[in-house]
């Protein structure tokens, strides 16, 4: 094994760098083009064409330079990466600091046997160098894994007190799950992804509206105005638009999660999915911080849920989902079986009856109303003093209901804690759009904060905040106005560590 050899990425990574830079620059480019055209007219078009050509040439040159200045070595103890056109960077990644290697393979790389490797590192003290090898031979991953295993074994041998069990076959598949077409469609069809996309699109088009030249706007107005066609047309058109978005989003989700496969190997869980871009993520079981069982309201109606893992990572990339979905769709009756098979460490969850306190609901609602009050008062004042109508008040009330009061009510109805055994606890809570259950092992809860105001002491109510690690940062779950007894039970459970 020529481990000392300095290597380069495959030349096709120039294309990858090019695409990456274009993606970063395309939106500002379009906006400035539209700006140029609307202000300068024909001249603007010529200028923008020139700008595009120049930009393209520059991009190609830069991508080529990036390719030529990027090199890496697979050494005995670490991977050394050299990069940078003007500012030279050298990254050393010792094998034992590698937390995770994600394999990303675009469909056009498959025939060439190439893939992209994303190497994530461990370490809480530093953000950690994160290395992306854009296009390398597929065998490289196995090479790196071999080095990782070697280093692991050396470490184990160094400690005389541990018994070394030769784990020869680290790739033995213990359990496997492959999504069925029906479930894939069900998952995509019940996703609310298209709604967020719709909101974003409407936002964009509102911004664009100002840049559209006057003549075009007039023509649209004359031919397509509401007065012309009637409000039913407007409603119909919007519904059609939403339907279209919905269908497109189903298609996109099916492509993204195509052939979703979950496998369990010794000490790891592996998830593989995607049609155009096949993504493989491997997670060591000790990086799992919690299991999250999650239902949007639609899925609750259909009695299906999603199971995700909260994991620790140092990745700052947007692509890496902070919560890893390990089971996109599962019938609620099958969850127990699934968890027993893939997460044998987690005990069986026995649901206790929800002790729903009227006071919990009262206090949460009271707080929500108190928070909304200044806004509502401001709205009423504006209406009475300025607008002489009631629309502002109506808008503010709807706004408050949607963002403050309803979510608060949802939370109050479900917030609950159930201690399963000495090592595990489950938390139930709602958000406005979904219902969740999170299972923690005691050593993954980073800290607990019990909060109680002087006045609630008499009512025997308290709140608790559970701090945990998700991705590269800390998160917390806040459960408010629960019976103090339950919270104290949680605190003594935690103190028994």
């Amino acid at each position, binding site marked *: 094994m020529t481990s000392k050899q300095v290597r380069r990425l495959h030349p096709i990574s120039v294309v990858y760098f090019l695409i990456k830079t274009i993606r970063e620059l395309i939106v500002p480019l379009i906006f400035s083009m539209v700006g140029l055209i609307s202000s300068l007219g024909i001249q603007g078009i010529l200028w923008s064409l020139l700008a595009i050509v120049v930009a393209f040439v520059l991009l190609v040159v830069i991508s080529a330079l990036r390719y030529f200045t990027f090199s890496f070595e697979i050494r005995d103890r670490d991977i050394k990466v050299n990069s940078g056109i003007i500012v030279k960077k050298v990254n050393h990644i010792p094998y034992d600091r590698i937390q995770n290697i994600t394999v990303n393979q675009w469909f056009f790389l498959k025939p060439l046997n190439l893939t992209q490797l994303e190497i994530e590192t461990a370490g809480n*003290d530093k953000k950690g160098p994160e290395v992306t090898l854009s296009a390398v031979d597929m065998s490289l991953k196995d090479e790196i894994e071999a080095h990782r295993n070697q280093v692991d074994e050396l470490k184990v041998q160094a400690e005389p007190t541990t018994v070394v069990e030769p784990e020869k076959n680290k790739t033995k598949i213990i359990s496997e799950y492959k999504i069925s077409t029906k479930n894939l469609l069900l998952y995509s069809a019940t996703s609310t992804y298209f709604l967020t996309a719709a909101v974003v699109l409407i936002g964009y088009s509102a911004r664009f509206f100002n840049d559209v030249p006057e003549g075009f706007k007039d023509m649209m107005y004359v031919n397509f105005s509401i007065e012309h066609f009637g409000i039913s047309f407007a409603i119909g058109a919007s519904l059609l638009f939403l339907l279209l978005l919905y269908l497109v989003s189903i298609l996109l989700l099916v492509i993204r999660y195509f052939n979703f496969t979950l496998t369990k190997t010794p000490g790891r869980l592996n998830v593989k999915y995607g049609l155009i871009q096949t993504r493989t993520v491997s997670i060591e079981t000790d990086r799992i911080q919690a299991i999250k069982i999650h239902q949007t309201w639609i899925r609750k109606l259909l009695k299906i849920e999603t199971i995700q893992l909260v994991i620790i990572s140092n990745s700052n990339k947007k692509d890496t989902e902070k919560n890893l979905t390990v089971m996109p769709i599962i019938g609620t009756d099958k969850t127990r079986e699934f968890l027993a098979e893939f997460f044998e460490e987690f005990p069986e969850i026995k649901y206790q009856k929800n002790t729903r306190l009227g006071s919990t609901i009262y206090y949460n609602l009271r707080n929500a109303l108190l928070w909304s009050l200044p806004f509502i008062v401001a709205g009423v004042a504006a209406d009475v003093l300025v607008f002489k109508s009631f629309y502002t008040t109506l808008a503010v009330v709807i706004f408050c209901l949607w963002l403050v009061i309803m979510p608060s009510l949802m939370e109050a109805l479900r917030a609950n804690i159930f201690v399963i055994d000495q090592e595990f606890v489950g938390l139930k809570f709602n958000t406005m759009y979904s219902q969740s259950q999170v299972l923690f092992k005691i*050593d993954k809860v980073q*800290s607990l904060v019990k*909060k109680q105001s002087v006045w609630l002491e008499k009512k025997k109510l308290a709140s608790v905040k559970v*701090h945990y690690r998700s991705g590269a940062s800390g*998160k917390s779950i806040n459960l408010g106005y629960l019976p103090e007894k339950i919270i104290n039970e949680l605190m003594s459970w935690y103190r028994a560590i």
Partner: protein
Amino acid sequence: MENKLEKLPKAIRSIWGLHAIFTLIFFLIIWIPAKLLIPVTVEDNTFSIYLWAILAIIIIIFVVQLAIIPYRWNFWTFNITENRVELHKGFFLRKQIVIPIARVQNVTMKQGPILQMFKLHEVSIVTAAENHKIDGLTGDMAQELKDLIMKLAKEARNDL
């Protein structure tokens, strides 16, 4: 320091007092120009009543903040045992923070200009998720706390 319920140094009370004064000054900086610059309008009476009401609220908040300080100091305690660090703070809104020693990643210290004047340090107990802060400790206490926690953390990791 181990297994003893500790309080913060008394000097922290002066710092809290200073914070209250700064908050007061901050609100006054907004209020005074508002009072002077809003022109006389038809609704003059109602508007100036609002302004005076707001001033009253600002002053009440300030007075309450000052009055609370001894209670706040009394209720701010922390306790380090072999297994965990516990912080208790707040008078009206009481918080009890439990951090297992095994979850402590690091103990860091910070000093802003006000803390520097009083020779105190803000100590942060760093976990993988959240940094829990102790408002102010003397240099010696801070160092003692840091050494103790790191020693216990090392022992906790060796036991695993």
